[in-house]
């Protein structure tokens, strides 16, 4: 059976972890939540670094934990990237990379070479960790985990200890890893931008429980449980660069159901990108508005209406073709426009953020 079935229960004074998850065998699954929400504890349970007294863990059909059965960490075919790079200071970069490989019978030189190329660290191999920058260290530690050809890659806030510049340095490598490797990733993060860029699935954690889980796009578009990725509710759509307008420095990206004009981010034609649209940047009209400064105007169908946090406001979920959007508007506007599930409307999107 493919995928990861994870069921853990931990009772500590002041903290309870209680999850029962069925996670996909492909792509990046973000464990997203505030500190103290239990996301790192959950990851450590999957790795076997933390032993949940009650639990069951099955990874791609292999039972790693069950009643009376416990596979110690060093026997689990996983890769783990810690928040701090945690390289062995007494070994060189290459020594660090080889440490795990020497202990895996089936380890292949090819996966080491691939990991070194993927993370761009071939120039660092002879150095000691103390002579590396923070970003370089973290790249080495990611390569060290990948060199083992793990069946699952666990990453515990790999960017949290880095400053913004180093983060920007590593994110492209993570995106590449995501595109080029087939290994499923559990990615713990409290950073909305990382989740928006990298995740395919999301598990939103709060108080030791998973409050929402599912594909990123659909989960973010849920109105019953608006998940804030950062400052506001919004959706993330997977798109593809379809046209570049050199004169106006714009690019047209196509997503399932429509297309959007965004500022040209220098991406090649055909390259996959993600766009993030916040609810507050989406407004609704019953007819197409012609004389407006807003570039992106799409036809949509109202899907669902829900109350927002303030009684004056409402959240609206719309379908643009196969893709969901969330709009925020006042209850009064919703009433005056007569919006109901099924209404045909025009959405104007004031701002689209191109991420990745």
């Amino acid at each position: 059976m493919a995928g990861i079935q994870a069921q853990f229960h931990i009772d500590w004074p002041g903290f309870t972890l209680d999850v029962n998850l069925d996670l996909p065998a492909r792509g990046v699954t973000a464990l997203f939540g505030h500190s103290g929400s239990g996301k790192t504890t959950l990851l450590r349970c999957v790795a076997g670094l933390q032993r949940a007294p009650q639990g069951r863990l099955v990874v791609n059909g292999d039972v790693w934990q069950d009643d009376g059965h416990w596979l110690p960490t060093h026997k689990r075919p996983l890769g783990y990237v810690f928040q701090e790079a945690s390289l062995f200071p007494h070994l060189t970069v290459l020594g660090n990379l080889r440490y795990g490989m020497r202990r895996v019978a089936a380890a292949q030189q090819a996966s080491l070479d691939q990991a070194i190329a993927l993370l761009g660290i071939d120039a660092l191999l002879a150095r000691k960790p103390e002579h590396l920058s923070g970003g370089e260290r973290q790249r080495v530690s990611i390569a060290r985990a990948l060199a083992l050809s793990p069946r699952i890659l666990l990453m515990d806030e790999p960017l949290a200890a880095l400053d913004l510049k180093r983060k920007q340095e590593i994110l492209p490598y993570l995106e590449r890893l995501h595109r080029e490797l087939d290994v499923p990733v559990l990615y713990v993060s409290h950073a909305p931008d990382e989740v928006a860029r990298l995740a395919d699935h999301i598990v939103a954690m709060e108080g030791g429980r998973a409050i929402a889980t599912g594909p990123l796009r659909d989960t973010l578009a849920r109105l019953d449980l608006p998940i804030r990725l950062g400052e506001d509710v919004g959706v993330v759509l997977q798109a593809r660069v379809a046209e570049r307008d050199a004169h106006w420095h714009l690019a047209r990206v196509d997503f399932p159901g429509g297309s959007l004009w965004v500022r040209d981010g220098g991406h090649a034609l055909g390259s996959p990108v993600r766009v993030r649209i916040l609810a507050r940047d989406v407004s609704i009209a019953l007819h197409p508005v012609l004389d407006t400064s807003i570039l992106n105007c799409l036809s949509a169908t109202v899907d669902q209406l829900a109350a927002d946090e303030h009684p004056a406001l409402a959240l609206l979920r719309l379908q643009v073709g196969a893709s969901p959007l969330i709009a925020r508007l006042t209850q009064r506007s919703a009433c005056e426009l007569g919006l109901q599930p099924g209404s045909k409307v025009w959405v104007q999107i004031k701002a689209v953020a191109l991420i990745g």
Partner: protein
Amino acid sequence: MFLTPDDLQALWLTVRLASIVTLILLLIGTPIAWWLARSKAWWKGPVGAVVALPLVLPPSVLGFYLLLTMGPNGPVGQLTQSLGIGLLPFTFWGLVVASVFYSLPFMVQPLQTAFESIGERPLEVAATLRASPLDAFFSVAVPLARPGFVTACILTFAHTVGEFGVVLMIGGNIPGVSRVASVQIYDHVEAMEYTDAHRLSAVMLAFSFLVLLALYTRRPKLGQGA
């Protein structure tokens, strides 16, 4: 050579005793230090206190109890007799056993500190890289704790060289068997041979100073930080 043959014999005996004790303590002290550094058991405190006892106990007290335990009526004495080894007090190996107890904290405490400063993380990393706990101990913990091992061995060796009270209680004063340098100096003074006492004392002084010099000027090894 300005030392008498008896002095040289005493020095050689001292070096042999200290080397053997250091080696034995390396084997015994390492697991104890490892356990003390990582255990969360409630009896970790009492065990740590017992290990540290020789630091505060008068050597004569330690020697006295060891003498009783290893003597003809003591449990260890009866065991060694029934094994055909005979009695340990007033033999070289009796001295070794006593010195192991006496120098135990000098091996265990630096190692415990070194293991504690490594922390949990490198061992967790090793586990995620397929190293079993024993493998991780030798491939990660020992290299990272190397400065601690060097300190512990130097301190243990030097402390064993400097012991006196325990030797008198357990070893007596038998040339070639238990008459170590410190006892030999005592003998010289008793016999009013101040010149001989001076020479041997000067050797001990120089040795002690050099050991401490080595300890205090040794640069922290690479791999301590980061």
